[in-house]
């Protein structure tokens, strides 16, 4: 295609002085991966392709269904039963044949995520389940890729940019700084159960595309470390400043190898109530001496525990220290109960049903209080 045509294709945005030819060049050179070609992914894909993002990846293993069409308006009724990644790729190539589209008609997993994601500069999360959302978040942290997050619930949607560092010394925020670990199964309803208005996913998906374009071209104020909530009934928005937490870095797999062996679906399927014990039950385990008690905090964290015998294995080093865990019952604890819950889930995913794993609810602080009471 001639340069003249290319200019004409993007002319209406190039004449915006904030964006200009340099903004267009940045878009043309960028590689954006859109995970999930659904209610959020479809509008994001359409606007990114239209705007001239040079390389767009699409990951989705689903097929088009009749009840998708009210919100996934990239597809047509004739596409029912066809793979979304392939149909989306077909329509986007018609919209803009000058850009490169890579479609992955597969389910993103801890095994293939790194390989797919490392070929792109930006990742857009348009998925519809927590297991995949946490997996994408952790992979983006490990690969150092900015993540454009969007999600909806009934008449509300949220958008944020995670894991973006303008300067190397900047503190970036990731999804685990907001919600450290995934909700248990059934704790939060999805669209299938609670319903969603098609237009809302269109608005939120379009906002995600807008934030991506702002981030790439360097214009405006992208939602870096800010979570914006939009209500489609009242038209009100509410923005919240996010900060990095000490906790989240312990919850993300230490390296790519640890990530690839994580079972995110299993981790999202376990409920808290099966696994968390209170200070009184913890005291009983100390008394009975029939369980391995493990402190999963870092070695120098206070308060130091000398009241009972225990192992010290920081959360990030659990996987390589499994041989020091001997007993059939394992009780993990930390400061506040959050890291130990993650540790318990990690151990449970390794042991499946062969050992009993518990986590001290509200942490060692709560046990100290219990002791003093």
């Amino acid at each position, binding site marked *: 295609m001639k340069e003249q045509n290319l200019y004409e294709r993007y002319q209406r945005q190039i004449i915006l002085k904030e964006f200009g030819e340099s903004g267009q060049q940045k878009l043309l050179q960028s590689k954006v991966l859109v995970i999930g070609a659904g209610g959020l992914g479809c509008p994001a894909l359409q606007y990114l392709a239209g705007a001239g993002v040079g390389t767009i990846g699409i990951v989705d293993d689903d097929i088009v269904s009749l009840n998708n069409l009210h919100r996934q308006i990239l597809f047509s009724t004739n596409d029912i039963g066809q793979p979304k990644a392939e149909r989306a790729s077909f329509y986007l190539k018609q919209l803009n044949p000058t850009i490169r589209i890579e479609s992955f008609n597969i389910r993103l997993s801890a095994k293939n995520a790194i390989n797919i994601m490392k070929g792109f500069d930006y990742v857009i999360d348009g998925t519809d389940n927590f297991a995949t959302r946490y997996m994408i978040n952790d992979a983006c942290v490990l690969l150092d890729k900015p993540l454009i997050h969007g*999600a909806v619930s*009934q008449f509300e949607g949220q958008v944020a940019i995670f894991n973006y560092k303008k300067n190397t010394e900047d503190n970036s925020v990731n999804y685990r700084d907001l919600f450290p670990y995934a909700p248990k199964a059934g704790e939060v309803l999805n669209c299938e159960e609670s319903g969603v208005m098609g237009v809302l996913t269109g608005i939120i998906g379009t906002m995600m595309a807008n934030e991506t374009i702002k981030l790439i071209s360097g214009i405006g104020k992208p939602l870096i470390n800010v979570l914006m909530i939009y209500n489609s009934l009242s038209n009100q928005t509410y923005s919240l400043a996010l900060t990095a937490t000490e*906790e989240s870095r312990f919850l993300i797999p230490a390296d790519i190898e640890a990530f690839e062996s994580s079972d995110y679906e299993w981790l999202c399927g376990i409920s808290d109530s099966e696994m968390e014990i209170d200070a009184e039950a913890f005291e009983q385990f100390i008394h009975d001496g029939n369980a391995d008690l493990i402190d999963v905090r870092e070695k120098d964290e206070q308060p130091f525990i000398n009241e009972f015998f225990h192992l010290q294995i920081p959360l990030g080093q659990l996987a390589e220290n499994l041989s020091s865990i001997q007993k059939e019952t394992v009780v993990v604890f930390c400061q506040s109960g959050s890291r130990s819950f993650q540790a318990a889930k990690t151990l449970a995913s390794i042991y499946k049903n062969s050992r009993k794993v518990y986590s001290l609810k509200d942490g060692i602080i709560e046990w100290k209080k219990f002791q003093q009471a």
Partner: protein
Amino acid sequence: MDIIVFGQLKEMLGSERITVNDVEDIYELQKALHTKYPLLEHAKYKIAVDRKMISDNIKLNNDSEIAMLPPFSGG
């Protein structure tokens, strides 16, 4: 203080906006809310004070603006 609630928490609290006064800190606020709305105790949500997401217990006053946000997963 005004408490703005999002997502499915609205159904649990029966309103988008409620008022609670004279609680000293986040811990007391949660205790008061969990007593009044028992379902909330088992719900997953994050609290923001004056439009900043917080993770630790902090002091509150009657002018504080509180927001309660559950995770959204839909796409």
